[in-house]
């Protein structure tokens, strides 16, 4: 394949993911300029390494992995990775889900929560959990794609998702209670 063919193939695969990559980058960095730098660097690295990409494998997981690894080595990423939730120490172990009391008015809280409140709660969830929520619920990646993106086993994806949703629910419930008492 010539360099030109490779570039055309790259554009065809990579440009449709531009909006998703930017949204993910902005959620990770929480800053427009840093998100732009991160996406730009991702495209440079991906184009450079496109020769190593195996056609027929998952391009989306491949380029999201580049973005995420680039973020982890950035100043913001290094700072974020130091803020690891305590619970994540055992995230290779399958999570034992615990039934939540039927009396918990979560359905009501969620139904009443505004999009801004959910966004604010998502911002406060640690990056380790935020990224898995975004890949699963926003990008609608399968567990296998998420595992490929984060380079972790599927069991880890499942336990992180469980903890991430639990953390998001708790943060959101806190925000709703605060709003009610304000």
């Amino acid at each position: 394949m010539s360099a030109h063919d490779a570039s055309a193939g790259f554009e065809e695969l990579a440009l449709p993911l531009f909006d998703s990559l930017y949204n993910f980058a902005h959620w990770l960095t929480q800053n427009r300029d840093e998100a732009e730098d991160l996406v730009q660097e991702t495209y440079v690295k991906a184009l450079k390494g496109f020769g190593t990409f195996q056609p027929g494998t998952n391009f989306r997981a491949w380029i999201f992995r580049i973005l995420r690894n680039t973020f982890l080595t950035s100043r913001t990423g290094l700072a974020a990775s130091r803020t690891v939730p305590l619970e994540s120490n055992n995230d290779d172990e399958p999570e034992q889900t615990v039934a939540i009391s039927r009396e918990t008015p979560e359905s009501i809280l969620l139904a009443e929560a505004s999009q801004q409140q959910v966004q604010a709660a998502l911002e406060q969830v640690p990056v380790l959990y935020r990224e898995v929520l975004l890949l699963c619920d926003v990008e609608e990646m399968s567990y296998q794609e998420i595992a490929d993106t984060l380079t972790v086993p599927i069991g880890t994806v499942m336990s992180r998702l469980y903890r991430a949703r639990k953390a998001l629910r708790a943060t959101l419930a806190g925000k709703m209670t605060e709003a009610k008492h304000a």
Partner: protein
Amino acid sequence: MPDDRWQPKLDQYLDSELSAEEMRQMDAHLRECASCASDALRRLQLKRATRLAGQRYAPSAEFRRRIEKQVAAKGRPARRWLWIPALASLVVLLAAVVTVGRWYERSRSQQLLAELADLHVADLASPTPVDVVSSDRHTVKPWFQGKLPFTFDLPELEGTGYKLVGGRVAYLEHEPGAELLFDVGAHHISVFIFRDRPEIERVFPAHESKVRVLSFHVESWAAGGLRYFAFSDASPEAIEGLCRLLKQAGA
């Protein structure tokens, strides 16, 4: 209390990560177990809220142009062949625009269907799934007068195997519509009726379509400026039978 055998698999069920057989078993369990159904609803609400809240940031037009230029420039082989990559870029860009447009429409249609699936599941989990309770179409239809900016016709169901349970006002993206609940055997079918708006037409261009959402069968069609969606875990044939009666009534 939610059933310990099924509750740990609820997230995988809602993330479509169970096998087809397990999905069927979970469908059957949720019909029987109000506690797990309620838990599933709670998780579905959180998943949907996360999806909507997560689609937050859009790149600037200037940044988009910069990336497109950067990506296109890397593949430029020689100046005398400048027009070739330029043309290729244009074609790729057009393809990208079409692809992004299609992706957006697919994503929008999934969002609309997910919203309707939420309504369907939430109503079935509710102790009062309908606000007007009657099997008489001459009671249910007039109940919507003054509540909706349109009207619709309901078929006579005597002897068809279908039973009208009642209805309520539902909202899809802040637009009011009718939600009608029907029974067929042990299954429930929710039929949603909304004004057919350009935004809905764009994501459901087909006059009629049949899809699956979270294992629910969904049949959708447009008629008389209205858009109908029928949701159920009943067989596609059972849904199709009710849809046929509704289409005949509206014809």
